[in-house]
């Protein structure tokens, strides 16, 4: 991964804006920002952003590669789309944030312990396995991702929730053992693998 990262540094000679434009989903929009800040003010988790979107765009132009890719900020995006609908320059900010997060994650620069990063990983692997979400497995994985002890603590804390879901038949313990997914999960997995390969090739991310 780090080799991939250094490769990128090499390739773009610190022209971070160019790197973002070519490798990040919707990255070519970054240059269109006029620094009005409407996105930064519109985010529900705003106060938790170390660097709000508009500032991140400025940092990208200023070549602050490490700071941008290492920040937890993008991981605060709840995909509420407020920024997108309010942006006077029509930047697809939500997607750019997703793109940056994915890129940082891909280069191994994203904050290791960020819970959303880890949940996202678990989630994707969960759906990639059978093609459909296995909520039981998902929640357990989530609680135990920091190891057994804290897992037990969390699941106890969540017990009320889980119980409620079970009682109302909205959570099914048995899916742990046999979860109904798509008919040919292998085939789907192959598709996703191929998709990833193509994407990496296109973005020069093949490592």
């Amino acid at each position: 991964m780090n080799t991939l990262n250094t490769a990128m540094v090499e390739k773009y000679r610190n022209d971070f804006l160019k790197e973002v434009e070519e490798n990040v989903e919707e990255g070519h929009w970054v240059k269109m920002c006029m620094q009005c800040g409407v996105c930064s003010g519109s985010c529900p988790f705003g106060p938790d952003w170390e660097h709000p979107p508009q500032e991140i765009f400025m940092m990208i132009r200023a070549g602050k590669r490490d700071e941008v890719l290492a920040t937890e900020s993008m991981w605060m995006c709840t995909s509420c789309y407020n920024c997108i609908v309010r942006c006077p320059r029509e930047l697809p900010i939500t997607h750019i944030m997703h793109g940056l997060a994915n890129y940082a994650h891909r280069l191994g620069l994203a904050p290791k312990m960020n819970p959303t990063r880890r949940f996202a990983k678990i989630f994707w692997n969960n759906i990639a396995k059978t093609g459909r979400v296995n909520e039981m497995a998902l929640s357990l994985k989530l609680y135990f991702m920091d190891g057994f002890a804290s897992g037990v603590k969390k699941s106890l804390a969540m017990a009320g929730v889980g119980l409620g879901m079970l009682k109302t038949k909205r959570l099914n313990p048995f899916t742990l053992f046999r979860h109904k997914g798509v008919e040919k999960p292998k085939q789907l997995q192959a598709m996703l693998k191929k998709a990833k390969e193509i994407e990496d090739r296109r973005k020069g991310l093949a490592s």
Partner: protein
Amino acid sequence: MSDTKTAAYICKGCGLGERLDTAQLANLAESEGKCAITRQHDFLCNQDGVGTIRNDIDNEGVTHVVIAACSRRAKTEAFNFDDVALTRANLREGVVWVRPDSEEARETTQEMADDYVRMACAEIQYMHQPAGNQEAGSNKRILVVGGGVSGMTAALESSKAGYEVLVVEKTAELGGWAAKLHRRVPTREPFADPQDAGVVELIKAINDDQNVQVFLNSTIVRTSGAPGRFSVDIGTESGTTTTENVGAIIQASGFRNYDASQLPELGFGQSPDVVDQAGLEELAKQANGKPIQRPSDGKEVNSVVFIQCAGQRSNAEGHLPYCSGHCCNTSIKQAMYFKDANPGVDTVVMFDDLRTPGNGEDFYRSAQRKGVIFTKGKPQGVNKNNGQLEVKFHDMILDEDAIAKADLVVLATGQVPNSGADIEQLAAASDSEDTQNENAELTVPVDSILNLNYRQGPDLPHLRHGFSDSHFICFPYETRRSGIYTCGPVRRPMDIAQAAVDATGAALKAIQAVENASVGRAAHPRSGDLSFPSFRKEGCTQCKRCTVECPFGAIDEDEERYPVFNESRCRRCGTCMGACPVRVISFENYSVDTVGQQVKAVDMPDEFDEKPRILLLACENDAYPALDMAAQQGLVYSPFVRILPVRCLGSVNAIWISDALNSGYDGIMLMGCKKGDDYQCHFVKGSEMAYDRMGKIDDTLQQLQLETERVVTHEVEITDIHRVPQLINEYAAKIDEIGMNPFKGF
């Protein structure tokens, strides 16, 4: 003057009939007012009423008409008789609408009406139909000074309207700054890319135009005369001079670039790779679409930083305090020179506020699409560091100091107007000099543009920061030198597009000036006024007040220091009349007498009647309309005031004041427009001069042992609808307090 016949018409409509004894008014007009005909009418402004007046003029030989009805501002369509001398006694807005309809008020209200009829009759006796200006010049050629985009546009647009034009350009070719541009900022959709400057086409059009005659390498050596009859000496480098006669002048002398060598801190002069926008245009022209090379070593430029507001928007010594308006769009355009040739070039525009009004916003977006980076930053200095330029700046968004490396740095410096000599300074200088010194006001500085031989100086007065702009928002072409109009960047900083519009507008005004001059009509704001100042040479004491105080420099002096009136330069404000201590200046329809006799015509009760009389001289443009609108609102004010509209407080002659005091008025109010830097007086200094003239009157008052409060001056705005009656009432109370004028009855 042919024998006059005066008729008075008293309207009984709008409650006048019920509230007033109109028969008595008619008698007054006949007995005191010496009117040959007096008629009362129930509804004077209707067809029948107007018909009656028309008939008397056509068949009864009436030459002078008094209409005693509503305000002179009302019913103008009906009472529109331009073949007679006409005045209006304001019985509606001036009397019944501002007085309560009550028994106790009846007497004083009637007295008001009586006096207004007396005043109107007195005025009309001294009024004449203006005959128009005999010395009207009929030359309709237009002189354009300056051969840049503004000048060429003004010339072509005038020519298209069928007028002959002379263009005087001091350099060897037409085109001005625009000719030095590689491309210009786009003027039409999609406002995405630089477009051709179009100067070549303009020059061709000029050369192909039979109506346009061009003088290159030429300047104006001397300008004399007036609208319709200017005489201009055009001097060439070779020293030859030709004299041309023109009717109006358009000054399009443009701007020069701010001297960037005053910005060493931004690296100008320190490195050849720091240029101003003009310098960049040169480089771009050389490159002509190919990659631009930097001056120092001819290396292709791979990174460029544009520094906006360089030496502008700053009060630092030697900087320009204003914003030159075009520079943001210009830097955007120039950044595109680089991006269009090679998208790989790093282009950073460093700005404080990015100012791209109107469709400039599209141009801004287009630049971003092309990858131009915009950084809100405050530049701190430009240095060379082992072969590379470094721009130190504070990033306003990331709030940190930073450095931008660049092969080339472009400074967006400002426009400095070529507006000639600052005549206020000259005047100040000549005043400080020995006043005997004949040459004091004759010395003409080298950089004068027009070299007017006007008494008040060789160029147009500057407004602010050296620009010769108009002072008025609603009247951008209201100039202080009749028949001379500025356009383009000499007026205020502007881009090519605005300059072209401005030049077209100036051409219209020039055409209008020659058309008006040829029939002796006044220009804005008293458009169409045919009167003009006449003066009795015998009696003149050569005091020069009129020549100094004329806001439009209309009056020169002959060798014996007698005033020489240039009627077509005159704007008919009457400031000269107000200034004249010996009262030798007057207009046919507005004179020391037309006003003075009104002042005297008012019936003066003796001091035991406890009916004081207050004279109110009100500016006709702001104070008088405010009084009308107060009446419209039914606001009430003292019945002891007598209101007399004047063209401008500047026209108020001290004699009216002393006559009023002598004839027993207890108080005198003057209401004029705002004075000072943001003056609102359309005759520039009218109310200001009234103020210091009245200041001088204080001494007179003290000599007469009268309280100084007997004469007060107020700045009034047209919107002071509540305030104006209030001022009157407060003053009436004041007079009550200080008591009657002791001179009553003498």
